[in-house]
């Protein structure tokens, strides 16, 4: 039996007892580490953790690791450590039993089974925690307006460095530094994008020229133009032209239904 992974053919291990059609699902599933993968292999067949056949599971485990590698999954070292543990258990089982039984504490199979059972407990618990009613998904905070109160609510003030620290935190978390370069230039464009949107919301259809202000100088004009291009790209605004070489008008995206020719950029 053969299986195709990204065009390449692989021989399917004959006693791999997961049906081939499940392969795709498995490859698309991300496992939360080697214990998770092992549990998956065990639970798919309603086997008891206590009764796992290590030789079989090792074989399967290695087969999956190879398939994942063939599919260019980035495998953490933890997966390989587990493979080594399984191999060790398997090799021990080939030795005369007395030796393994001598020192139960050190039996890697006992240790693995304990670890699997412990992990499964928390995995199941986390699934139940995930089902708890949660703010923002199942329950929502109540947002109520206040009557006019004579006493003005003291507004907390925010310092610039607090705001920047918050953003630095966001960026650090999402690891966005590498992907987005928000330069000064980009910020002035984003600001102009907002103000163009606001103007168009008020006037709906504006002539292309009226959005440029010569008094802002060359830089201002360039920023406006860049902002416009960005808005067109994000489909937030539309440029329309009734006739060739006629005046160009700008409107909010998808607002105007007319036979006017839409400028494609």
């Amino acid at each position: 039996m053969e299986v195709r992974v990204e065009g390449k053919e692989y021989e399917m291990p004959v006693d791999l007892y997961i049906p081939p059609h499940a392969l795709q699902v498995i490859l698309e599933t991300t496992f939360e580490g080697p214990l998770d993968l092992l549990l998956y292999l065990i639970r798919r067949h309603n086997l008891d953790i206590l009764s796992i056949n290590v030789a079989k599971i090792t074989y399967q485990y290695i087969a999956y690791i190879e398939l994942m590698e063939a599919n260019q999954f980035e495998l953490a070292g933890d997966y390989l450590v587990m493979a080594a543990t399984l191999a060790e258990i398997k090799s021990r089982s080939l030795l005369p039993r007395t030796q393994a039984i001598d020192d139960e504490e050190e039996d890697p199979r006992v240790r693995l089974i304990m670890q699997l059972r412990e992990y499964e407990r928390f995995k199941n618990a986390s699934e139940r925690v995930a089902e708890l009613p949660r703010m923002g998904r199942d329950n929502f905070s109540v947002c109520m307006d206040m009557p006019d109160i004579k006493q003005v609510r003291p507004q907390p003030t925010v310092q610039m460095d607090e705001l920047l620290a918050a953003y630095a935190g966001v960026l650090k978390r999402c690891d966005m530094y590498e992907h987005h370069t928000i330069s000064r230039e980009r910020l002035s464009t984003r600001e102009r994008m907002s103000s163009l949107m606001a103007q168009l919301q008020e006037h709906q259809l504006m002539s292309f020229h009226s959005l440029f202000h010569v008094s802002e100088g060359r830089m201002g004009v360039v920023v406006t133009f860049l902002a416009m291009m960005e808005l067109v790209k994000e489909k937030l605004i539309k440029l329309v032209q009734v006739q060739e070489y006629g005046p160009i008008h700008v409107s909010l995206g998808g607002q105007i239904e007319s036979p006017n020719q839409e400028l494609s950029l």
Partner: protein
Amino acid sequence: MITELGPVLEALLLAADKPLSVERLCQLFDESDGVDNKRIKKTLRDLKGSYGGRGYQLIEVASGFRFQVHQDYALWVARLWQEKPQKYSRALLETLSIIAYQQPITRGEIEAIRGVGVSSPIIHTMIERCWIRSVGHKEVPGRPELFATTKEFLDHFNLTQLSDLPALEELASWDEATMAPAKLKQPQQQEIEVVTESIH
């Protein structure tokens, strides 16, 4: 078919960060829900009368219906606010900073960046403070609102324009714990260079 429309409307009006019109409410239902403008209006009328003796009421303003804390209890609410100078939550600051740097941006986009939902009261607070406003709708299914910062936002932070905010490269070295002072001003020269570059 929704048999009890009242609690659904209550849930919607309480979760929203601004008044909702009958038309807007109507859009939120499927055909199978059996809800039309007329039914909504009638239900809202019934609801309005049902909060006697409560600390809040349902009122109609120009842009729709909203819940409001009852005037009679304003005195105690004022005490609540009086207590101590409060601070804005981390969530609010993060949301505000994302809007400042990534505007115009939808709530969903902010949530994607933060990895967690943005609650209505947060948006509400920032709109009330006139720091952000809706500048339109994104033309994607659902037409979500696009938020942008305002002049008041710039004023509050003593900025002349948005581009006075530190560039990302400066933030990269930002130590959150120490909140190292920001270098807010950059030589003009650099700005021109960058813009010129981007034209090509």
